[in-house]
């Protein structure tokens, strides 16, 4: 066999090997999924953005479309298949379950409730007792948490005037509201609109709702566990990296925001830095959920009559997709 023949044979082997590898790559099918967010594009989803932009989802064979909140019924969207995964609040999840929608939590972004009740520094409102006789703007779960907090402190709920808020903090600034509920992530906006402010955390008064809970349907969990596992594995990895690199993670949000809704880098960094301790508490793995927390939320909703029937907590959430470490 002369050298020419050897070269020809090696070339043929190389081409076959190359084509084989290409075929193999092509066989790894990319699955496109929709993730419905609980809010507009914001740094509170930085872990997911990191997983997307750093290729963690792609490594798991996923192409993720993030759909910002559009005032729709997210649990229903999950059931209707408009979203493969949706980010819900703990109370929404419990109510959806009661309504017969087969949705389940598979990962929680915020383990500590990011809800706070803000007031002007000058008003000297620092504890629930200070809200007596005052007007507080709140919406949905903020109302449930407020009532629960007041009750835990033995305060007559009727002694506090709770009204619908409009998310601008203008009424707090103008003095129409003495206090207004919101997420701790609104700090930069608050500072700009209201100035220096005090915060009452419901979690300081034994009221803690999981927030931004990644959920999907029972059907998807049973029929496509690999897909759920792939999504959660990449998401958890993304969150871990985001916590280790908060500034860089926060700025990834800009890649998703429309031109007219671009936030300032300072705002995004603030959101990430203030959120980190609420997302990663150090006393359990990232995303891990505890039955006691869901049970406490359920008790609060039952007491307030928001929830009519007690739900089986074991059907509300599962940690089975958190087993793998990043």
């Amino acid at each position, binding site marked *: 066999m002369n050298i020419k023949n050897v070269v020809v044979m090696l070339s043929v082997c190389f081409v076959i090997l190359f084509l084989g590898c290409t075929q193999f790559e092509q066989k790894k099918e990319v699955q496109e999924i929709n993730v419905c967010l609980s809010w507009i594009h914001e740094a509170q989803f930085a872990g997911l953005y990191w997983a997307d932009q750093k290729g963690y989802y792609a490594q798991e064979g996923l192409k993720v479309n993030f759909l910002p909140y559009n005032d729709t019924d997210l649990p229903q969207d999950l059931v209707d298949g408009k979203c493969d995964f949706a980010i819900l609040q703990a109370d929404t999840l419990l109510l959806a379950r009661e309504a017969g929608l087969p949705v389940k939590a598979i990962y929680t972004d915020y383990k*500590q409730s990011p809800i706070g009740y803000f007031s002007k520094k000058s008003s000297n409102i*620092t*504890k*629930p*007792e200070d809200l007596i006789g005052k007007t507080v703007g709140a919406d949905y779960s903020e109302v449930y948490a407020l009532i629960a907090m007041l009750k*835990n*402190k033995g305060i007559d709920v009727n002694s506090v005037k709770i009204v619908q808020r409009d998310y601008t903090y203008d009424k707090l600034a103008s003095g129409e509201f003495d206090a207004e509920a919101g997420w701790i992530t609104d700090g930069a906006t608050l500072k700009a609109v209201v100035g220096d402010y005090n915060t009452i*955390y419901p*979690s*300081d*008064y*034994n009221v*803690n709702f999981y927030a931004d809970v990644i959920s999907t349907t029972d059907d998807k969990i049973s029929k496509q566990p690999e897909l759920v596992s792939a999504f959660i594995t990449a998401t958890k990895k993304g969150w*871990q990296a985001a*916590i*280790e690199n908060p500034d860089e993670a926060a700025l990834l949000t800009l890649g998703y925001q429309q031109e007219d809704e671009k936030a300032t880098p300072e705002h995004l960094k603030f959101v990430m830095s203030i959120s*980190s*301790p*609420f997302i*990663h*508490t*150090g*006393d*359990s*793995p990232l995303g891990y959920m505890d039955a*006691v927390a869901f049970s*406490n939320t359920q008790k609060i909703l039952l007491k307030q009559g928001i929830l009519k029937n007690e739900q089986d907590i074991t059907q509300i959430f599962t940690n089975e997709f958190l087993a793998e*470490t*990043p």
Partner: protein
Amino acid sequence: MRISLKIITAMMLVTLSSVILISSIFLVSGEKQIQDRVYAQFDSVLALKESSIINFFSNNEKRVSSLSSDDVLLSELEKFYVEPKNILNVREILKKELSEESGAFGGFFIMNLDGNIVVSTNPDEEGKIRADRPYFINGKEQVYTQTFYYSTYLQGLAATTTAPIKNSEGQLIGVIAGRNNLIELSSLMTETVGFGESGETYIVNKFNYPVTGLKFENDSVLKKALYTEGVNECITEKHQETHHMEYSDYQNTLVIGAHKWVPTYEFCLVAEMNKNEAFLPINNFKNDIVFECVIISIITAVIGYFVSFTLVKPINLLKDYADAIRNGQLDKKYEVNSKDEIEDVAITLNKMCLGIKDRNDLLNTILNAIKGKFGNIVTILLRKDIEELAKKNPRITSILPKELRASLRKSKLAKK
């Protein structure tokens, strides 16, 4: 290959292989000794730190437990439950205790049976509810320490020790809590005497997060997840005896490390040292060996050259002698003073030369005699072989001198 090169090569091979063999033995045993020494150091440091940490928490538990049964505090607390304005007295007792604890605690507070903080050394904390906190739930039953969690109130790492407060009738009336001062613990962990520049010790909680600072990574407490081989093994295997291994650390640097699981407080103690730094003496020794080998090679080559020169010089003389003999120079006498076999060969060659010379002289005498009697025939005889001539022309033998005829006859007889 020349004899001198062979001698030099052989000498270098023997010398270098001996050096390498001996050095290798030293290296292997040295490496083992250093590893054993570092591991022994790890063992003692981890044991010391474990004992210090356990002492830190157990002493604090004793202090909180003792405070929970302090008669003065109990008396004032019971008065406070009846008359809230007595809160000042209770707070003063807690503050006094705090000042006497010389930095072991960051604050004290008392929770009622609903988990409400009713008195605290920090009045801002009063009124908050901790009913869902593990330190309250467990503290109602026994002395308990919740180690290493993030406190949103403190906005940082916390560890809280609690104990049940019971009245004189043994009824539970509250839970007292002390916030452990973790600065003391962190400074304890940062002491790494004898670990060189790269050595460090740190604590990792059961979820792979450092709870004390990392030497080479800022702002890592409860943020950077550590999934190194060492930390993973510590958390999964939970070795209660110090376990040693080599692995890549959180900087992806090869380290020799040790870890130990502390079951009481559920954390992992880790000690690590850069392998290159730990084995620096051995690496230096390796460099020394390379240097020594170069020096030894040069010295061996020089010595080899002189040795070979001594051996080769008489051999070269003999060679010259043989060349001279080949060229017919039989008068020379060669002096070889090597006092060995080569000198014997030279003496024998001298004798051989004398013998050849004598025979040559005889032949020349005969030849001259023949030359005188037979003139040109001798020339012919010299040119051709006598035997050949005699074979072709047997009659010529009759005209040959008597000596030659006798020689020819002897030759014929010998052939027969």
